[in-house]
């Protein structure tokens, strides 16, 4: 089921009468049958968007459609959604079976069918053996899966997940993430999940939607958004370690970063910000390149070496030093204190104007 949002706006009024546009004129179409990650820093409006889709919050303006069906003014129970809460909200006094059965009972589904569907769903999420346990006798990951089963058992049109992995430890998170992906594939249900963890979003989503201050910044396949960020915020939000941002300028068709020439451009002369992904640095063994730094720190983990470079910060800037990270092959054998010349992979470099907009 395709989800379409038109001009969706949600305004919260704080105690001192200040208006916060948690979701600000959002137009978004979520394609049918896909797993979509709504991604952004905390307070960007991603959870609010999810709750607007769910109907637990009411928009101030705009419309929501599920396929052709407008649901803007429908109460949550009429929308046909399954929602998994951040802390799962499993009913603590009911067993796993009763939890999964609960929506079916309310829908007055015939008893034998309801029981069958409950067992089927428990098996889908791999909890067939745990049906008679109470939620607190389960691990976090298992509780999570009960919540997914409860959301899916009523065959909703749309599955919504609110920070589904944030309450799990690192190992379980990886495991559960695969599990969510598998369940989504097997059921083919249109799924929207909210997360602040870019790695999580990139690894399981078919497409990601990056939000900031209630406004959608960019939507697309994870790798595409990573490779072609449309602004500096998206470039900085995706990727770990973060993209390096240099102050620079374009002069006479040449690109200068920190005063050093790093490449050529057809763009007109102007001051710019240059984003270079840590993996975009190539060590220039011939030392021909003008772009060189003294290395402050070297961290080798496995096959990668991270070079940490500190340069004086801007005048008037909060930080007196800017730190850059470059990831190079461990076979390079670079020590702290070495001067290293770099070439830059052109596709790992993004030029932005001073407002942070991508220059093409």
């Amino acid at each position: 089921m395709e989800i379409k949002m038109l001009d969706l706006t949600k305004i919260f009024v704080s105690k001192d009468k200040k208006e916060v546009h948690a979701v600000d004129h959002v137009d978004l179409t979520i394609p049918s049958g896909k797993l979509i990650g709504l991604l952004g820093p905390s307070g960007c409006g991603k959870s609010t968007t999810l709750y607007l889709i769910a109907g637990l919050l009411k928009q101030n303006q705009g419309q929501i459609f599920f396929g052709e069906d407008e649901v803007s003014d429908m109460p949550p129970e009429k929308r046909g959604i399954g929602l998994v809460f951040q802390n799962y909200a499993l009913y603590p006094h009911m067993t796993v079976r009763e939890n999964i059965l609960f929506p079916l009972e309310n829908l007055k589904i015939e008893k034998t069918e309801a029981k069958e569907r409950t067992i089927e769903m428990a098996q889908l999420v791999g909890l067939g053996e745990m049906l008679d346990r109470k939620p607190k006798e389960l691990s976090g990951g298992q509780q999570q899966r009960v919540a997914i089963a409860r959301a899916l058992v009523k065959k909703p049109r749309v599955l919504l997940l609110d920070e589904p992995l944030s309450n799990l430890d690192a190992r379980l998170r990886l495991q559960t993430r695969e599990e969510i992906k598998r369940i989504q594939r097997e059921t083919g249900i249109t799924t929207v999940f909210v997360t602040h963890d870019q790695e999580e979003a990139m690894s399981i989503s078919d497409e990601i939607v990056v939000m900031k201050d209630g406004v959608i910044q960019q939507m697309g396949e994870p790798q595409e958004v990573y490779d072609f960020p449309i602004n500096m915020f998206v470039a900085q939000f995706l990727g770990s370690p973060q993209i390096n941002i240099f102050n620079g300028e374009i002069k006479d068709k040449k690109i200068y970063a920190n005063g050093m020439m790093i490449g050529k451009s057809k763009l007109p002369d102007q001051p710019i910000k240059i984003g270079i992904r840590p993996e975009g640095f190539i060590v220039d063994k011939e030392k021909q390149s003008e772009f060189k730094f003294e290395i402050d720190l070297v961290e080798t983990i496995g096959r990668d070496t991270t070079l940490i470079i500190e340069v004086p910060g801007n005048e008037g800037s909060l930080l007196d030093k800017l730190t850059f990270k470059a990831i190079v092959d461990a076979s390079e054998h670079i020590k702290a204190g070495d001067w290293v010349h770099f070439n830059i992979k052109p596709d790992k470099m993004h030029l932005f104007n001073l407002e942070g907009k991508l220059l093409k």
Partner: protein
Amino acid sequence: METKNNLRAWLYLAPMLLLMAVFTFYPLFNAFVISFYKDYLPLANDGAGSITGYTIANYGVIFKNQLFWQSLKNTFVLALVSVPLSIIISLLISVALKSIPKLKGFFQTVFFLPYVTNGIAVGMAFAVMFHRDYGLFNLVLSWFGITALDWIGGTASWWAQMGALMIFTIWESLAFKILVFTSGLQNIDKQYYDAAKIDHATKWTIFKRITVPLLSPLILYISITSMIGALKAYNSVIGLFGERLGAQPYSMITIVAFVYKYRSDFSFQGFYSYAASAAIILFFITLLFSVIQTVVSKKRIHY
């Protein structure tokens, strides 16, 4: 270290334990002993008291007393009807209060007022309201074409009197229950309600399947304490009926009133022991009720 801490703990507890020992444990133990005195005269021998031995016949005297059975019947009917009813009513009011957040504070105060008002004074006010000719209750009934009922007057039936006592008792006990339940409701995570809403639950289903089970530890607590309170009913009878303890003398007598009647006539030989026996019987009845409630509810409580 352990013993040192223990010592300190006992020291902190000492004032309370001392008071409990003097005013709770000793009287309890003493009442038990007195209930077996034979021919007890507490004021004889210049206040030292006199007995002629020990006997269990005091209990026999109580069981043979028609008034004791009357008090038992009154107390049981009052407790077994008023406690469940008041719990249900206070639960419904608490849930209703939750859905009107703006007026909640005001109504909470209104509902709590009975708690800070003197029971006897309120009883007297209710006595006026139950008056056959001038009372509010009969006025309201007359609007529906129901003929005036004698609630607490000389011609009142036992059921009418019990009805009046019940209405009064329930009204008076709502305050504390509403207070406890509203605070209990506040502690239930809102997400359960959101989840239930998305799970297509109706309001009644949510109340039955979510609210009540999640509140069940508090409901047990309230049902035990208010059952104990109801078994000790006395104030309400005095307030509503005065010292006659009923529209007809003793028609609304309760166990505590029965105990008090004997005790106040302690100058008669052995009456003090009869009072003690009746009090011990009440103690065991109360204990029995509490145990039954705890055992029965064990399966239905979700902590």
